[in-house]
């Protein structure tokens, strides 16, 4: 029984084997070759290929060696002891229209005191009253009992001054715009930023982590080119484009250049390409426009078309801090999401009281202050144009002007010499100071700031001194 089964098995095996051999004859030649090649490869892999060495983990000894070897850099690099920041002039007394340096009085064309509110007795009185009512510090952030009624009053007054729905104040000028931009613009949003904006805006833009598109300073055609490019990009992916917010960040009057932004055209483009405008009016508040309400008043544009206007209380107003005004819908968001507002102590009440009084004075004087300032700026501009050898950068109505030497003579060293010489003659001016990592470092210049109370003779004197200085320096 078994043997016959075995025999059957063997027989079936034999026939299978035979049919296998037969099929071999029928296969095409290339198939055979391919099979042989595969078999050879497998043999090679098994027998001849060297196995990959598995990386051994570091031993404790090796780890300790690495730790022992590691040496950090020194915490700070060495600093040149002659750096101007380490040898600043230390002043005494009120830094108003005149300053006292080394016992001598000189005319002050260096500090941001446009409307000469520094040292104003009315403002000082109000500040003293505030100290007598509230003390000095507010001892808390706005969310936790740091909101004092005087802050609310200042916010209302600012909103009223600008004819906007709501205002919000910050305790530090630098962090105003640097906190505002990240509060609205998040990671994938698009920011169109002018190259000449000042450092605080650059930091705000960096902190927002959005996509930034820089356009050449005040160059509308460059902006239009960028907008058109973005438009093409959007049309390829409309679903995504509907979730990306776009913002245009500009200044009213640029601190680094002294010129105005071409606002009317930018507002037109706003409705064409659907972006929002955030304008920083730190320098133009109180100085441009008939009543000091800024660039929107100068160009006669409806302020509701600008989504947010941010500014500083440290320049014309003569206090400390910053603020933003706009519609309630836009401004209210900052109360919960602007870092410099939520996580920082509020403005000391005496500075808020000073700002309110300054606003009072501005509203009383109505057009006289700013008109006078614009007139004097124009006059100064004409006088400066008469001096040979200087390049004046800035609008004629701007009280902030940049002075450069012509062609290749414009170096920091020469400008510093001019400043030194002017100081000996009783005029205080300053070279504009920048940090190295500005996005678009402006060329060296002297920043001239006009105080509204400067008389014509004083302006003449300034021009005379500048002329003499230039002659002395370029000889």
């Amino acid at each position, binding site marked *: 029984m078994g043997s016959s089964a075995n025999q059957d098995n063997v027989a079936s095996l034999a026939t299978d084997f035979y049919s296998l051999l037969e099929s071999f004859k029928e296969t095409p030649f290339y198939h055979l070759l391919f099979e042989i090649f595969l078999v050879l490869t497998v043999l090679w892999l098994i027998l001849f290929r060297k196995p990959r060495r598995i990386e051994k983990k570091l031993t404790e000894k090796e*780890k300790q060696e690495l*730790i022992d070897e*590691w*040496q*950090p850099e020194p*915490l*700070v*690099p*060495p*600093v*040149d002891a002659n750096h101007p*920041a380490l040898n*600043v002039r230390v*002043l*005494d007394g009120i*830094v108003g229209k005149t300053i006292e340096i080394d016992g001598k009085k000189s005319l002050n064309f260096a*500090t941001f005191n446009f409307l000469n509110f*520094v040292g104003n007795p009315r403002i000082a009185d109000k500040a003293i009253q505030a*100290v*007598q*009512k*509230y*003390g*000095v510090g507010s*001892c808390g952030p*706005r*969310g*936790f*009992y740091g909101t004092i*009624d005087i802050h609310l009053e200042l916010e209302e007054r600012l909103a009223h001054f600008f004819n906007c729905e709501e205002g919000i104040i910050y305790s*530090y*000028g*630098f*962090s105003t715009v640097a906190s505002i931009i990240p509060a609205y613009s998040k990671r994938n949003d698009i920011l169109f930023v002018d190259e000449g904006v000042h*450092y605080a805006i650059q930091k705000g833009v960096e902190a927002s982590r959005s996509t930034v598109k820089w356009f050449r300073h005040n160059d509308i055609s460059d902006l239009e080119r960028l907008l058109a490019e973005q438009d093409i990009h959007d049309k390829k992916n409309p679903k995504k484009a*509907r*979730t990306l*917010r*776009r913002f245009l960040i500009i200044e009213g009057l640029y601190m680094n250049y002294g010129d105005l932004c071409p606002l009317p055209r930018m507002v037109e483009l706003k409705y064409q390409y*659907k972006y929002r405008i955030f304008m920083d009016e730190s320098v133009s508040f109180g100085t441009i426009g008939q009543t000091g309400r800024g660039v929107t008043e100068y160009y006669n544009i409806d302020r509701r078309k600008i989504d947010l206007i941010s500014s500083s209380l*440290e*320049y014309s107003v*003569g206090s*400390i801090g910053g603020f933003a005004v706009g*519609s*309630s*819908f836009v401004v209210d*968001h900052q109360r919960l999401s602007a*870092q410099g507002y939520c996580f*920082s*102590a509020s403005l000391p009440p005496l500075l808020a009281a000073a700002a309110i009084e300054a606003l009072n004075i501005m509203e009383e004087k109505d057009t006289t202050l700013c008109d006078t300032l614009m007139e004097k700026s124009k006059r100064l501009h004409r006088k400066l144009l008469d001096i040979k050898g200087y390049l004046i950068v800035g609008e004629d109505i701007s009280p902030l002007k940049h002075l450069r030497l012509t062609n290749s003579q414009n170096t920091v060293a020469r400008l510093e010499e001019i400043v030194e010489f002017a100081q000996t003659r009783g005029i205080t001016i*300053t070279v504009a*100071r*920048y*940090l*190295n*990592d500005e*996005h678009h*470092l402006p060329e*060296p210049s002297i920043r001239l700031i006009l105080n509204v109370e400067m008389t014509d003779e004083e302006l003449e004197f300034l021009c005379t001194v500048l002329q003499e200085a230039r002659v002395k320096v370029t000889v």
Partner: protein
Amino acid sequence: MAKTSAHQKNKSYSNAVYATPVSEHPSLDEVYEVTPFSEAFWTYLNYVILNIFGWFRDLLRNARIENRKGSAENNPPGFVPLYQSYESFYTRNVYQRIADCFNRPIGSVPGATLDLLERVTDDYNWSFRFTGGKVKTINLASYNYLGFANNSGPIAENVINSIKTSGLTAASTTQEFGTLTQHRKLESLLAEYLGTEDAIAFGMGFATNALNIPTLVGKKNDSFQSLAINKTKLLYLKGCLILSDELNHASLVLGARLSGAVIKVYKHNDMNHLERLLRESIISGQPRTHRMWKKILIIVEGVYSMEGSLCKLPELIELKKKYRAYLYLDEAHSIGAMGLRGRGVVDYWKCDVNDVDILMGTFTKSFAAAGGYIAGKKDLIDHIRVTSHSAAYATSMSPPVVEQIVSVLNLLLDNDEEHEGRQRINQLAWNARYFRQRLTKMGFIVYGHPHSPVVPALLYSPSKIAAFNREMLKRGVAVVTVGFPATPLVLGRVRFCLSASHTKEMLDEVLKHAEEVGDLLNMRKSKLNPKRPFHETES
């Protein structure tokens, strides 16, 4: 000087017998009781119900059945909406319900007592109306640790004088014409007070962190131009590492992010985790390239204001020395408030101030002014003077504020036990211990270090946050209650800030009210310290 201290003695140091000098050893035990299961359960349920209601109300609002309160966007069509709808879901439906607990306006000095402006709402917290009345409350909310928030007295006189002689602002940056003699005086006094070589002061505490951390561990300076005024070649090099505590303040986080360095977060006060991270980081080097790190900076705070905990400074210094890292200590809440002589946590732990590389602090809390400072070795401060964003672009500090700080420093530098400075420090230390002990014995779950001036008691759920706040206000006590997102989701709390100007009677009154409200809200459920009535906790 003697006259004023006697005057102060009569006013607020009637309980002089209760103000013993702080002589005990620094303590290492901090207690964090485990969240009771029932509390966690009810809190989560709370949030679920809030979410359901929120979703439902949003539905009604979208269908225009309910009026949209709050300002509506009036932009022309075609613009992308300014805010994502889910970002404001929490604001509309959770925060808005308890919005009356926050942003309360005050109308007086934020001292030991506070005058709140009474406000009512007609439409469930969407808008408020002032009635014109004032509510007098005991103030356990302001950061007034040493009680220097005063509107009269010799310090206020100094401030008023300085307004007359120096104006309110120099309207110029520190590197140009903003440095006055007062600023230099402040910096030298500060260096003397802290025991460092030099110090530099800024106008805002938040900005001190956010604008100066990038100058210490910044990224490579690609846009270096030869026309630059800064003659120093800035050697910012990519490849720095920041190890930051989990619960660090927003300003430290922002500064770290702006610097561009790699950031690793370690668990709060967990020195083992920190050491593991240090070892692993040094061994494996920078991500991807495995090059060595250029610098490692450990960022910690002295007192963490939401937890009430202290950093473990001796262990940190040991770790720092072992691995050659640098230590950045943010003493916003601890300067003036901790330590035998009020010099901060370094004084409290009796460590050497030269071991901490960068000491930072603010003037808003103990000094009742505004601003921040950084102190350390002279070459560090020189570097910051040259490269700080704030020194180059921001207006210098306002002279009256500087005068306030200088006057306070003069008082605090005086080591005489009888004089005002030391008396205040001792009073604060006594107040902090007393309040915390009694609160704990009454059965509240209290977090934090036994000697910290910040005392957080746990509430857990968002409804209790609002209820505690409102109930205490009814009884005349102003407190700060916080929930998500400043704290973890389940751990809402009330945070008491003690002050040297609180008398024992005021603290007892607050404790009695807290007992009542605690019972009303069923808060006194500590298992470590079973609840006892107020009169039994005196010891």
